[in-house]
């Protein structure tokens, strides 16, 4: 049980998933303070100064270790990688896109690197490149997704059998039951996303959190943006997109639109991401409560 927490220097083997535009420093610090591993997200931004300021802000809020996620398909990812190294972050996660250059870069700098893999083949490739752990992310997850990926239940044991490094389960986990199920499948840790959006410390707008708490098991859909898909809640906008009455494409996926919808609560501007596990989340809790309930007997 200690492999992941020792690797990351935190108390529990629980990693905060990158939450795009709602990954505020206060949330990251709260996760690390509560015993998990907080993670900033560079996602699709290109604003390096703002990213540096976020790192400094987390450092002001906690002495505990935290990391960051880089999206490999972001053209600025290597520039951000240098910022992370300069800031002395102990570990990073890499997702969406070809991780080869980033893995090579971080390994050379002695930074622990975990790769998010939605299939066995991508997990094997990352393991061959020498990553320290694989985050096996099933299709239940919210946010960016590929096409035709398997569910967490199928993916995690497959990856556990296919690679020699520890595996972290992601997608569909929000309580103690899911946490234990992940360990039964052979995972050494979990990554949480949706339940942390519905936390007190997350900057997500009240409308966003309310939509998560009111969702049932059938309330997310995959929205096709062209190059990628996004799993999002069935807001009126998403319903319109699915009916062909509105269109959202990859070019609409901008920090401005994301912030308008996710932080300002204008749900008509852009889909709000959430995993299928939103159906189980019924109330907004503090990060500490979420983590402590998860690891409780």
């Amino acid at each position: 049980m200690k492999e992941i927490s020792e690797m990351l220097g935190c108390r529990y083997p629980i990693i905060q998933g990158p939450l795009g535009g709602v990954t505020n420093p206060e949330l990251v610090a709260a996760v690390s303070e509560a015993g998990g591993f907080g993670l900033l997200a560079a996602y699709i931004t290109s604003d390096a100064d703002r990213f540096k300021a976020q790192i400094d802000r987390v450092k002001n809020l906690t002495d505990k270790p935290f990391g960051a996620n880089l999206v490999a398909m972001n053209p600025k990812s290597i520039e951000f990688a240098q910022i992370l190294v300069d800031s002395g972050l102990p570990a990073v996660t890499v997702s969406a896109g070809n991780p080869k250059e980033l893995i090579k870069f971080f390994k050379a700098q002695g930074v622990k690197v975990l790769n998010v893999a939605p299939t066995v083949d991508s997990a094997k490739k990352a393991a061959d490149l020498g990553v320290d752990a694989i985050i096996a992310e099933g299709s239940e997850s919210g946010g960016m997704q590929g096409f035709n990926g398997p569910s967490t239940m199928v993916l995690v044991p497959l990856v556990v059998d296919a690679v020699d490094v520890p595996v972290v389960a992601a997608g569909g986990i929000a309580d103690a039951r899911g946490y234990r199920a992940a360990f039964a499948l052979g995972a050494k840790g979990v990554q949480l996303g949706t339940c942390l959006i519905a936390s007190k410390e997350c900057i997500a707008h009240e409308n966003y959190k309310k939509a998560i708490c009111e969702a049932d098991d059938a309330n997310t859909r995959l929205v096709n943006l062209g190059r990628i898909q996004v799993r999002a809640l069935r807001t009126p906008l998403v319903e319109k997109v699915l009916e062909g009455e509105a269109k959202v494409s990859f070019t609409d996926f901008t920090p401005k639109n994301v912030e308008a919808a996710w932080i300002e609560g204008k749900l008509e501007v852009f889909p709000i991401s959430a995993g299928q596990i939103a159906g189980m989340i019924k109330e907004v809790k503090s990060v500490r409560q979420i983590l402590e309930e998860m690891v409780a007997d």
Partner: protein
Amino acid sequence: MLKTRMTELLGVDYPIQCGTLMWLSRAELVAAVANAGAFACLAAHSFENRAELTAEIRKTKQLTDRVFGVNVSLMPTLKPQDVTDMIKITIDEGVKIIETAAGNPEPYRPQIVEAGLIHIHKCARVRDAAKMSRMGVDAVAIVGTEAGGHPGMEKVGSLVLIPQAVDQVTVPLIAGGGFSDGRSLVAALALGADGVLMGTRFMTAKECIIHPDIKRRLVEAQETDTLFVMESIRNPGRVLRNPWAEKVLEMEKVGSTLEQLAPVISGKITLKGWLDGGFDQGLFYCGQVVGRIKDEPSAAEIIKSIVEEAVQVKERMDGLFQ
């Protein structure tokens, strides 16, 4: 060690069901699973007429003294089916367990209850599971979108469905979709289920009538090699990717009607494929977990290895979470 409300209710040794497989859940497979201490049902719709179903039940009884069930799908079919008669045959032949799937079993409840059958209903949505529990069925099975066959329109994974169903169902809950071994069985129990059903795992069992060439295809398949067909007619089926499935998808893309699709999605073509081994013809239903199936053991060996692994995993878990 693996006693649950499911094993108690059904009178089996292990909380494992061989998921009912259209055309494939026949006497040999069902009896082999039952003899190994797990649960299985004959797929009633696989048989041409009442004489054939009756004969298959009798054959199963000759092959095992253990309990088994009969599965009756309530999904609308092109060729009308006499579900009431299928249930009557089940009762008359002394089978004690009936599994209904899809649709609403309410019209058949009086017949089932009066005969004292144990009634399992299988569904794919939490709200349906909750409704069945309130209706008074004896057990509810819920399958995630990973499952082969027809796991519903909503495409929700079993890891997400199970705990929510547990919270809303009072009767024993059997979890399906993505299960194939001891690790996944213990995961289901950790989520609060009383047992699992696994279909794809038993498709490469020695006692399953699938042609060796198709079994080899299943063993070679990866977790990304399944896809959904028939979404356009609101009855998505998860099948192995093959030229036939691609052809069905193409037809759906250009707006083919049910009448146009009917000859291509016909179960008879699938049955022929299963038996003759021609990979290019027919829809071969299976779950994503096909990517984890790498061998062709007997049903008894499958069950033994699941149980042995589950016991080890439980011990490992006790060490982690004491």
